[in-house]
Every structure is written in structure tokens, then in C-alpha cells.
């Protein structure tokens, strides 16, 4: 706005009658009218598009309701968690959502750990370590995640070094006939727990022990702030927690036992243990490794953003390298990391939909299958979008809570 026009406005405001004040000569009228028209046009556009969709659906005799959700699914799913194919479609979509969460959750944990290590390693004074990390970041960051997923699916699993499941490599425990790992190109078997006895009693004691450990934490904190002795609350609470749990475990005669992975006699299924499919591993590992390259840069940037004097001050207090990071640099860097990390978590969650390419039964993939088998596309896609939107909102909600509790507090 130029000065002349501002002067015009001011004089018209101060002196309405002298310039023949009307509603039309007031700039505010136009501002409000502009906004109203803008909103009206957007509503009109949405209404027009919806109308268009509805008339086309009607023309093609495609339903516009959500009745299909209650029809039986009728197709089997690989990662099905005991899903019965005669259950309605909405249950099938929930399985998809669950598989998406599993892939995203696994990816987030792995990416965070790997990303932090690589980010710090890039700043290492060891030439080899820092160059390897740089190489990792610069390559992975510049490859589309879909390509990484397909690479894992084909080069690591499908045509990779692992044998077919029938001839799977079984890694045995020492002095035992049980396997601790079964490796094949279609699934990997891990040990899991099998519930044996006194389960509810064990979990009741677990909850009580947890509360007790929490009280211990609070007590140490209060004591430390009153007397100034080091609180050592992690050691105290964790120690109490672990010791008591082990005690309960033996007192209850071992409520859980190991379930070592083994195969059925015909060598086609896992008889015990926990199995993950190659598709799940391809997706989770690929997006974790891809996202880790971005997280590494965020970590490195945050560390570099800490003033050099902080590190020098720590060194001059003769803190060790570990102490310097643990007590001086990382706590400050962490605050800068969180907001960017949220973005990466959101991206990672959305990237799980690329699992369609390798047939992992997550939300996008099952939606596609469902559409191919009679579900109307617009409604199915709408539900899928709501699913991803919901997930993203939950992730950012959690991350925002963490961010708020960690940020600098003005006292």
C-alpha cells in the first residue's frame, strides 16, 4: 500500500462526510466482500465437483453409499492376524490399518536409532566413519523410497541370498535342537513367547511393580532436589523394576516360556515362533533406511547449530567425549531435532503406502484389492484417505506433546 492511499483512507475515515462517505468507498467493505466471495466460490467449486461425481456414479449405476462395508470380504490376506474371510469388509480395512501401523511403527523406531547414529557418526573425527556416513546419507537421500523398497523385495529377498522356505536356514541355539532364527526368502522366523500359566497374576504384579518403580522415581527426584545428592533415578527405578519382575517370574513358576521358531513337517509354514513376511521386512527396512538418511541430517544440523563454545566449555571442564554429548550438546540439540523429526515421521507413515508394490497387506494395498473385487472406488479411496489422515494426526499429536514438554521453558 502506498503512502498516498493510506493517507486517503485515513482522511476518509476521519472525515467521512467531507468526501461523501458511502459503504462502497470503504476499503473494509471490499476486504470482507472479497473473503465472502472467495469462500462462496470454494464452496461452489466443491459442490459442483461433488455433484459431478454423483451424477456420473448414477449414470454408471455405481452405489454411492457405504453398504459394501458390511458385505463379507471373501478374499484371503497374508498378514491376517487370524482374520476370517467371511468377516465384513470394514474389519478387513482395519487389518490393513493395523498392518500400516506395524510397518510405520517399526520404521519409526529403526529410522530414529539408525538416523541418530549416522548423524553423530558424520561429525566423527574418525575419517573412515565420517566418510562412510556421508556416503550413506548422500546416496540414500537421493533415491526414491519406492526404488529402495523394490530393491529390498527383489535383491534382498526374492532373488537374494536366502534359500526358499522349504530349505530355510535354521540357526540353532548352542547345545540345543531349537532354532533361534529361521531365514528364508519369503519369511523370517523369530522366537516369541508362549503363555503358559498364571498370566493374569503376572500382569497384575507387573502393573503394581510399575507403579512402585514410578513412586521410587518420584521419591528420588524429590530427595535430590531437597538434599542435593545425585538422584540416580533411572538406576533406582529400573533396578527395582527388573529385580522384582524376575522375582515374580520365578515365584509364579514361569508364566511365559520361549516359543522357538520351527517349521511344520511339510516345510511350508511356521509351527511355532513368530514369523514376519519378506514383504513386511522389505517395506519396514526400506523406509527406515531411507528415512534414517534424512534424520541423520537433521541430527547433524541440530548438533552443528549448538554454539561451539558449549562444546569447548564442556571440554575445559574435562568432561569426556561421552559426557560432553550426553549432558551438554544432545539435550540442547534435541529441542531443535523434534519439530523436524515430526515431519520425517509423518513422511515415513505416508510412505508405507508404497508397500502396494511388494504386496504387503497394508491399508492402501487392501483398498486396491477391495476395489478390484467389487467395492466402489470413490468411497474406498475416501476411507483410505481418512485412515492416513487419522494416522498422521495421531503421530503429530504425540510428537507435539513431546515437543511441548521438552522445549525451553521461560521461568
Amino acid at each position, binding site marked *: 500500500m502506498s503512502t498516498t492511499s493510506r493517507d486517503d483512507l485515513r482522511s476518509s475515515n476521519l472525515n467521512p462526510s467531507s468526501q461523501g462517505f458511502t459503504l462502497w468507498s470503504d476499503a473494509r467493505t*471490499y476486504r470482507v466482500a472479497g473473503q465472502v466471495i472467495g469462500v462462496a466460490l470454494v464452496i461452489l467449486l466443491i459442490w459442483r465437483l461433488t455433484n459431478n461425481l454423483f451424477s456420473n456414479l448414477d449414470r454408471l449405476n455405481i452405489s454411492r453409499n457405504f453398504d459394501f462395508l458390511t458385505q463379507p470380504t471373501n478374499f*484371503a490376506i497374508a498378514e491376517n492376524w487370524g482374520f476370517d474371510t467371511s468377516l465384513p469388509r470394514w474389519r478387513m480395512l482395519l487389518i490393513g490399518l493395523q498392518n500400516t501401523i506395524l510397518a510405520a511403527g517399526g520404521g519409526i523406531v529403526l529410522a530414529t536409532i539408525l538416523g541418530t547414529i549416522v548423524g553423530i557418526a558424520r561429525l566423527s573425527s574418525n575419517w573412515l566413519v565420517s566418510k562412510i556416513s556421508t556416503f550413506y546419507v548422500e546416496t540414500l537421500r537421493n533415491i526414491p523410497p519406492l526404488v529402495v523398497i523394490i530393491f529390498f523385495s527383489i535383491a534382498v529377498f526374492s532373488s537374494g541370498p536366502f534359500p526358499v522356505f522349504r530349505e530355510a536356514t535354521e540357526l540353532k541355539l548352542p547345545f540345543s535342537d531349537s532354532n533361534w532364527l529361521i531365514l528364508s526368502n519369503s519369511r523370517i522366523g523369530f522366537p516369541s513367547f508362549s503363555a503358559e500359566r498364571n498370566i493374569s497374576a503376572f500382569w497384575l504384579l507387573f502393573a503394581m511393580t510399575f507403579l512402585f518403580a514410578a513412586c521410587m522415581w518420584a521419591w528420588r527426584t524429590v530427595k535430590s532436589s531437597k538434599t542435593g545428592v545425585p538422584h540416580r533415578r533411572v538406576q533406582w527405578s529400573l533396578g527395582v523394576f527388573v529385580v522384582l519382575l524376575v522375582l515374580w517370574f520365578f515365584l509364579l513358576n514361569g508364566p511365559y516360556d520361549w516359543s522357538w521358531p520351527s517349521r511344520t513337517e511339510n516345510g511350508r509354514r511356521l509351527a511355532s515362533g513368530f514369523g514376519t513376511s519378506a514383504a513386511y521386512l522389505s517395506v519396514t527396512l526400506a523406509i527406515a533406511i531411507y528415512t534414517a538418511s534424512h534424520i541423520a541430517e537433521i541430527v547433524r544440523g541440530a548438533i552443528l547449530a549448538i554454539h561451539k563454545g558449549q562444546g569447548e566449555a564442556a571440554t575445559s571442564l574435562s568432561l569426556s567425549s561421552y559426557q560432553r554429548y550426553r549432558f551438554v550438546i544432545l539435550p540442547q540439540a534435541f529441542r531443535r531435532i523434534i519439530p523436524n523429526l515430526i515431519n520425517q515421521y509423518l513422511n515415513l507413515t505416508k510412505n508405507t503406502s508404497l508397500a502396494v508394490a511388494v504386496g504387503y497387506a497394508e491399508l492402501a494395498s487392501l483398498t486396491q484389492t477391495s*476395489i478390484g473385487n*467389487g467395492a466402489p472406488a470413490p468411497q474406498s479411496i475416501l476411507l483410505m484417505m481418512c485412515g492416513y489422515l487419522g494416522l498422521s494426526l495421531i503421530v503429530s499429536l504425540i510428537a507435539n506433546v513431546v515437543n511441548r514438554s521438552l522445549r525451553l521453558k521461560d521461568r
Partner: protein
Amino acid sequence: MLKNKKLITLLCATFALVLFAVACGSDDSDDASLLEEVQDRDSVRCGVRDALAGFAVLGADGSYSGFDVEFCRVVAAGVLGDANKVEFIPLETADRFTALQSGEVDVLIRNTTWTATRDGQEGANFLFTTFYDGQGFIVPADSGITSLEGLQDATICVAQGTTTELNLNAVFSARGINFTPAFFDTNTALQEAYEGGQCESYTGDASSLATYKFTSERDGGPAQYVIPEVISKEPLGPVVADGDTAWAQAVNWSIMATVQAWEFGLNSGNINSYSGDDPNVLNFLGAIDPSIEGLSTDFAVNVVSQVGNYQQIYARTLEPLGLPMAGSANRLWTDGGLLYTPPYR
């Protein structure tokens, strides 16, 4: 006042722009038949596969070939008089109905099974069945599996979003055979997984299993065994969008002309030199005008002389890939098959 004028101009411009956008996004629900649109465009957009041996394969030179592809050309020859006026649009299995519904393709000739649900819920209109198929299972010959019961606990590779998935589940659960599906959105990925041993068996239309077995063994792959049991009916044929009778009829009669010509003993070599006096044949060649909208009186001559009759198409595309016509349902009704067209009179 100058400023207000600017504001008004700006608003008017925005308004005009949005109005323009709305107008552009307006629906195509004017009731003009797709037939006219195809004729105006002078090309048929045909939705096909791109990597199914025998049915539709995208060659190294960028051209399509195969059984389904030939029928796309049949439609172009019938409606436009030139078999080459086809634009082939490769579609993934999961996208095919959406492409048809949204008008991205005029006709879908893509190994698509005619089912009640698809007819009803997908807004699809299935036309003359060009290929009678059934779902089968293929296993490596050295696996020793010879029956469906031998697939207990097996992992089975299956194409995503197909009737195959539904049949597999229905038949196996009825027989109490436990299985794990592994689904893939492209045939290539599916076959790669099967060859990599990620699944014990791969299921699909018996025809595609036969062509897969043939091409894979020919190219030096391990011996394959197709389990003789067929678990479903899979009538495959062209599909158009619901609610457009004129276009559907034009496509249907073009396709049926190939079967009718075969029944009359006409093929691409002799149709132009027919000198007999069978009134039925003469009708077929253009002596009567049945007034099917969009088809000229001699459309059948165009179809057969440019592409061939059904038997020629079959012999050209499928038989070289180990899929003999003998013994299948894809023979003329006079020969004990299922190919039967309404009379041309």
C-alpha cells in the same frame, strides 16, 4: 478510487477464473454416446494388459500383440473401418474398472472375467465372451504336487484385485485346505516371486498358466506342471461402461463378426473374393443393413479382411504359445464348443 477499481478488477478476474475452472470441471453427463466421440476422435482407446503372453504383450518395438489386442483392432475395424486406429492403454488389474468408469478407455479387453458383482457394482457392461477360461494352479514339476490337496499349508501367489483371489479363498476354505496368499499387482512381480520360490504355487487363468509354462520352459526355465483341476468358470471378454447401448452394440457386433465369419468359412484371405450365393453370407457381407448404429453395412468385411476370423486370431496368437484350440470350449458350437452368435439377418 483508483485502488477500489483495482480491487474490483482483481475480484472480477478471480471470479472469472474460478467460473472457468468450474465450467471446465463440469460433468460429461450430456447423453451423447461414446460412439460419436470415438468417431470424432477417429481412434478407439482400448484398455489392455502389457505382459500377458499370448493375450497382450508390449513388444520391444513399442507395439502390442496378442489375442486381446487383436480384438481391440477388430473393434476399430468395425467402428472406424481401419484396424490400426487403436490407442492401446496398458492398465493394472486394480485400475481397470476405474479407467473404464472414468472414460479413460472406451473398451476394456483385458482378460476380465464376467461376474454378477462386476456387472452390478462396477458399472461394467460385459459383452460377447471371446475366451472361455477357468482358474488353475501351476507348480514346479519337481515339487511332486499333483492335486489341490497337495497344496496344504502352501503359500500361493495370486494377482491382486481379481476374481482369482475370491475363487481361491472359496474353494480352499470349502475343502479345508489351509493356505497363505501372496498377492501382487503386476504379473511380472507375481512370476518373479514364483520363480524365486516365495510361493509353492501360482494361480491364475488356465490359459495364462499354459502360456507361462510354454514360454518359461521354452526359455530354459525349470519344468512346470499345471494341476489338471480347474476350479472356476472364467468367461473373458470385452467390457464397456454401463448405460451406453449404442456403443455397446457396435462393439459387440464387431466382435461377433469374427465368430460368424468363421462359421461361414470366411477368413481374411477369401472374404473379398466370395462368389457364392448363400443369402445368409450375402447378408453378412452387406446385402442387408441391420442399421446398427455406428456400423456400416460392410463392417464385417472390414473386420475379417483386416484382422481375420476368430480361428485365425486364435491360431496366430495363442496356438504358438502352447494353447491348442482342440479340446477347449473355445470352438464353434457346431463343433461342440461354446462360440455361438445370434444369426445375422
